[in-house]
């Protein structure tokens, strides 16, 4: 019988091969090529961002402490997310039936879980996220010399915390696919139009958890945003809270994996309708979050264009994420990473948006949509 260490090594090599295969395999050449092209454009954009840092910094002058907190939180969150995804995947592998039935001691299993927090896939994900966060500008906007190492440390700390934040019980529950759902009347009501239940299918277990999250925690932030607008007499606290919160909710709950499922693909449903079925629930929650805040902002400052601007920004950001998620339907983390990269690039171009940038965005949107449709209809692309 194989020793646990040998088994783990093989497990990790297997996952590494799977990752490399998914990047460079014949079926994903288009994806890899597109990713490489986007990376090049992104690097160019980041270069411009660095050159224009003085101009960008002037936009946010007067709030250095706020930016430092924002940069630190972003670095910490990026590392935490990477660690959690990595650890969760590794633990699911370790809880798989063929491994779970082996006669390992408890000590071996604990060691395996600890070791599994640093598989090659996680290192790659963490490296990319670190590069995006550090090179993206948030940390540099404050003070590169001092906060660069701090940012790296925060990402690493977040990665370790995220790695240990997944309880074994959750991994085991995911692996056994024992989905215990409590019906949410709110979500079910939003998911009854044709084709029915795609939102519930896409969200899975998240349907219950996110409904609770949507109602309690954001309600407090909602009140804070409205209070901020009333106190300052301006629209931006409520409108900005609405746009940022709405988009974060959307990012957290958008799942498009049903578009890759044969159970949906054998049905006579056009791609557009299937895609709408998958995104309508997250979109409704995102806009539903913005609605009270937007109304409050409008009531406080009716003539202020900030509210409309925030709503347009929210719809645009959600739209971008929809396109990316439809294209990368089977990998939400990769979709989120690409979205973050696109946002960093967009932040640079937003300062001087012209015809060429708009045309490029339109071409990208068409390419993403057609690619997603091709994969739905033909199963390849």
């Amino acid at each position, binding site marked *: 019988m194989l020793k646990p260490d040998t088994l783990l090594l093989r497990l990790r090599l297997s996952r590494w091969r799977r990752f490399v295969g998914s990047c460079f395999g014949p079926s994903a050449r288009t994806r890899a090529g597109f990713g490489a092209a986007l990376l090049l454009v992104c690097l160019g954009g980041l270069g411009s961002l660095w050159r224009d840092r003085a101009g960008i910094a002037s936009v946010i002058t007067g709030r250095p402490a706020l930016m430092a907190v924002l940069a630190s939180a972003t670095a910490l969150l990026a590392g935490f997310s990477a660690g959690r995804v990595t650890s969760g995947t590794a633990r699911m592998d370790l809880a798989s039936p063929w491994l779970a039935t082996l006669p390992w001691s408890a000590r071996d299993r604990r060691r395996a879980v600890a070791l599994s927090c640093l598989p090659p896939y996680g290192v790659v994900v963490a490296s990319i996220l670190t590069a995006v966060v550090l090179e993206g500008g948030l940390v540099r906007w404050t003070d590169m010399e001092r906060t660069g190492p701090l940012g790296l440390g925060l990402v690493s700390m977040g990665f370790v915390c995220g790695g240990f934040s997944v309880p074994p019980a959750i991994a085991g529950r995911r692996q056994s696919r*024992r989905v215990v759902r409590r019906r949410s009347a709110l979500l079910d009501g939003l998911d009854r139009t044709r084709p029915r239940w795609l939102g519930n299918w896409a969200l899975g277990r998240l349907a219950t958890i996110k409904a609770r999250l949507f109602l309690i925690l954001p309600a407090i932030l909602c009140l804070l945003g409205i209070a901020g607008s009333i106190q300052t007499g301006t629209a931006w606290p409520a409108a900005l809270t609405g746009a940022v919160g709405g988009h974060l909710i959307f990012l957290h709950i958008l799942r498009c994996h049903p578009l890759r499922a044969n159970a949906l693909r054998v*049905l006579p449903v056009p791609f557009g309708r299937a895609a709408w079925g998958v995104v309508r629930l997250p979109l409704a929650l995102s806009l539903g979050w913005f609605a009270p805040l937007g109304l409050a902002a409008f009531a406080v400052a009716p003539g202020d264009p900030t509210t409309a601007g925030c709503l347009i920004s929210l719809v645009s950001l959600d739209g971008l994420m929809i396109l990316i998620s439809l294209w990368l339907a089977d990998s939400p983390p990769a979709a989120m990473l690409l979205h973050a990269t696109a946002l960093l690039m967009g932040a640079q171009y937003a300062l001087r948006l012209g015809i060429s940038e708009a045309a490029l965005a339109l071409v990208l949107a068409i390419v993403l949509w057609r690619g997603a449709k091709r994969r739905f209809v033909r199963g390849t692309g």
Partner: protein
Amino acid sequence: MPPVLLDLSDVAAGYGGRIAIQDASLRLEGGQLLGLIGPNGAGKSTLLRAVAGLIPALAGSVAIDGHPILSERERALSALGYAVDPAELPAALTGRQYLEMVASVRRCQATDWPEPELDHVLGFRAWLDTPLAQCSLGTRAKLSIAAALLGAPALLVLDESLNGLDPVSSWRLRQILQRMVATGRHAAILSTHQIEMLGSLCTDLVYVEDGRIAYRWNRLDLETAGPGGIEAMVMTAVTGTAATIG
């Protein structure tokens, strides 16, 4: 003249550049029930996936009820009921939700089966409100077949779907299939390894081997062999010797 419900012409299909089935030509009219048999990995499921449009045909053409699957996908799939692998059903939904989803796409009721109260007949009514992840393999197989039967599509494709069913449900389902096909408005393809069950069920039989259709038997051949003689007929053709047991 019965309608041509499936027209395959020199179809080749596979995965990742590897061809699993090639030169496959089939023509199925209303009233025909085709049995598809062959060794594991011969290309049966690949062929049926190409029929359903789940994988693209690398060569040849597929038309369902006169509609090419590639250019008229929605129309072609409207005439197709494909029972997906039970493992591929949406685990997060309950059986009822899954049936309602399929029915909403097919624009029919979630109980619009060719047989009244199919949920009772096949014995999955008690599990309709249980998440599919918690249902047994057999129950999920029944739900998959029930979803394929919703709206009574012209062409039914069951890819080893009867394997996980209990004997009574399997028998009842075969009765339903026979009644549907006997109307002349429906046709079905049944892929299975249980040759003995095909005897009294199929009107045509195809044997797939090494990625090609190796043998075909029509209604006359099957009637000549009789329900009890089909296994011997197939084994004689495939192994080259008369099949005897004992």
